[in-house]
């Protein structure tokens, strides 16, 4: 038996440490440590309710729009305000833009560079991957960065600035887009479609979304786009068998994404061993047995975030969210599985969630959402409002549930006497990277790492890195 600490973990958002116990060369136990705490939920107390729109997004520089939308949704519930259609479209456009650019960043900047690692030097695909994905100047990487900057014009046009946008409000968005802005918006989305279809996926988005099995995907790519980044990726997945690496939980949650007129574009639900059930927010608790907090109520509507850095047996600043007492995996894979994307459903029936599945799900999602963004942009009406005013919020309780790039995000907010009296946030990576709970049950990543193998002499096993990064962790959100 031997131990290994991997950390600080690079190419993830924020700080992460993973403690591994090995039986020979195989991981037998993993502890995931979130080593950073800021106390946002305490900071938010006693402030004007809308100030959450300026403070909460600053939890995270990469999913700040998701945080904005969650805060705005919670506020809108309390204010009983419904944004006008234009405001709804522009909010969803901004959020989709952030989510999809996160998928891109994750793939090109964080996940793929691992395959340029020297341990893979003798692999037949290594040279090509090294050329495309090496840091800092891999050819695909540079193209992707440029595509990303152009695509982010969508947030620029609607919301002024990214990250830490201010334009998303409970009643809609602050800017009325003129004709020129709408045209530029459509151009930015179209530009992104071109990048995806030409370089990244190599297939028309609609055709890619309809593919319903991994075998069919292989055929399509072999015949139509053998040199796309995706085609290359499949070769690597097959060669390293990443289809079975890093298996996930048997429970998945999606809060449902991109609501238009009260209807979620991607379905909300809980996948419980093959069955899809409605989400019951009352069944969500945060266990703190191994998190550095003093004992407190477990319901996010009641709990708080006073810290206890010296707590015995606690090893992470991440609380342990549980749904009906069990762990759950969240993210693009969960969203696409629950929404019934054909490729992910077929994959799930064969392998369950895995490193390869999580990565593929992000591209399936991208291919399905970009065409919707085009529709939303076309639906913006001239001379109609983007925002509805509402009366000041004196008191109330509101839950803002959204899907961030990395999965289910919830803000639980209470206002009394015109000031915030409680605020709790459960972020996607809080679910995925949770520590053990009172029953000693490990979190999803802790479980997924068991069975990973290290090579002779490896100090930061590359297999572990693939698994960790497949979740696209956002550590700055995880503990906040």
């Amino acid at each position, binding site marked *: 038996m031997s131990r290994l600490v991997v950390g600080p973990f*690079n190419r993830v958002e924020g700080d992460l440490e993973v403690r591994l116990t090995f039986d020979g060369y195989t991981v037998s136990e993993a502890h995931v440590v979130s080593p950073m705490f800021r106390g*946002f939920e305490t*900071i938010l107390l006693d402030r004007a309710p809308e100030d959450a729109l300026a403070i909460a997004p600053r939890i995270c520089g*990469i999913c700040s729009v998701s945080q904005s939308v969650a805060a705005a949704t919670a506020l809108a519930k309390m204010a009983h305000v419904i944004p006008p259609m234009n405001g709804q479209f522009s909010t969803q456009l901004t959020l989709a833009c952030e989510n999809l650019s996160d998928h891109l960043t994750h793939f090109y900047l964080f996940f793929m560079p691992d395959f340029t690692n020297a341990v893979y030097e003798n692999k037949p695909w290594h040279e090509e991957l090294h050329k495309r994905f090496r840091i*800092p100047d891999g050819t695909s990487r540079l193209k992707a960065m440029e595509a990303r900057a152009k695509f982010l014009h969508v947030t620029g046009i609607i919301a002024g600035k990214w990250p830490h946008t201010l334009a998303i409000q409970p009643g809609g968005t602050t800017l009325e887009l003129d004709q020129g802005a709408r045209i530029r918006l459509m151009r930015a989305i179209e530009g992104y479609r071109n990048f995806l279809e030409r370089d990244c996926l190599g297939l028309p988005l609609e055709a890619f979304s309809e593919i319903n099995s991994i075998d069919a995907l292989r055929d399509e790519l072999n015949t139509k786009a053998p040199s796309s980044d995706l085609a290359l990726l499949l070769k690597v997945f097959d060669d390293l068998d990443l289809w079975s690496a890093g298996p996930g939980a048997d429970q998945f949650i999606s809060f449902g994404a991109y609501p238009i007129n009260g209807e979620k574009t991607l379905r909300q639900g809980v996948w419980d061993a093959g069955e899809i059930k409605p989400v019951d927010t009352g069944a969500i608790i945060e266990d703190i047995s191994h998190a550095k907090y003093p004992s407190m109520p477990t319901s996010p509507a009641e709990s708080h975030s006073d810290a206890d850095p010296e707590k015995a047996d606690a090893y992470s600043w991440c609380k342990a969210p549980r749904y009906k007492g069990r762990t759950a995996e969240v993210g693009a894979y969960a969203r696409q599985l629950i929404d019934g994307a054909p490729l992910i459903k077929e994959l799930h029936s064969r392998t369950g969630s895995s490193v390869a599945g999580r990565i593929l799900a992000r591209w399936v999602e991208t291919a399905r959402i970009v065409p919707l963004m085009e529709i939303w942009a076309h639906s913006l009406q001239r001379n109609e409002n983007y925002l509805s005013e509402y009366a000041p919020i004196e008191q109330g309780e509101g839950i803002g549930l959204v899907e961030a790039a990395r999965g289910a995000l919830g803000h639980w907010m209470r206002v009394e006497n015109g000031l915030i009296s409680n605020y709790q946030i459960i972020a996607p990576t809080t679910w995925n990277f949770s520590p053990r709970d009172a029953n000693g049950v490990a979190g999803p990543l802790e479980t997924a790492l068991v069975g990973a193998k290290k090579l002779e002499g490896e100090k930061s096993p590359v297999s572990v890195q693939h698994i960790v990064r497949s979740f696209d962790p956002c550590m700055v959100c995880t503990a906040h």
Partner: protein
Amino acid sequence: MSQTQTFYDMIRRQGVTRRSFAKFCGLTAASLGLAPAYAQQISHALETRPRTPVVWMHGLECTCCTESFIRSAHPLVKDVVLSMLSLDYDDTIMAAAGHQAEEILQETLENHHGEYILAVEGNPPLNEDGMYCIDGGRPFVEKLQEMAEGAKAIIAWGSCASWGCVQAAKPNPTNATPIDRVIRGKPIIKVPGCPPIPEVMTAVVTYILTFDRLPELDRQGRPKMFYSQRIHDKCYRRPHFDAGQFVEQWDDENARKGYCLYKMGCRGPTTYNACSTIRWNEGVSFPIQSGHNCIGCSEDNFWDAGPFYERLQNINAFGVEANADKIGAATAGIVGGSIALHAALSAVKRARKSPAEDTKQKETENA
């Protein structure tokens, strides 16, 4: 890591052509507000000086500075600057992980002692002996001080490293502290903003690496070339301010007409930053252009300067178009100094509020 390499070698090795390099030098001169002749000087410096390593560290933060930086405007500028940095140590985007990363850090500390630039994103929390931010098994503050000791100069990225930012907001649960309070005896340049504008970040780095010195700083340690003007000074809505034309509600007719956001709580008149000139997302827009007031995210203490959405229901002398002359004259005096403006503002507020509210207001102002 070869030690005798020049920046030019590095840039060329990464596939940037001679022509692009020349263009880059021109663009840089322009972005720094220098005469075209300086392009020559920049090019000469990059061709002859050995490259300076840059170490980029993260404390308590949200990584928005990195996000901003890697999206810098001109693709050429971004490529060149990224290749110049080579990011000897950056845990968000670098290739090495874990132990390897620590080794690179140690190597830089030993082999380039006194030569490297330390760029810091985020800040150290000091409560509980730094336990709120543990990096590689020890408090971030220790690692920061150790790396600072061997640095030639230090860049404080963003409002976190410069001022403390939101994690230092009341009650500052972890005692998040700006870096200049834990580092002594080293030149520190502050590049505040939450996050800073990408083009400002690249220009500052380029300046330091090219000329091997910090640009001229103001009294608060910010580069004068980007922080010497208020958002208000160059705001495209300024004519509406001067004419007394204000948005009163998010969805009113005046909002549609793009009037001034002063009454919606705009902090532009007291905020020093380059948003209204350089703008965001490759010059596409900036918060005020998106119809939202400036919240002053590059100013010290902006995080406790809320409520951000308090509206100035009515400004006595302002707000009536017919009175434009009078207002123009009044504002000309007011915007001369932020202190005068504040005074004028609170006078207005006081006039509009009941005495009880006034006391509350004062308490928050003094707190």
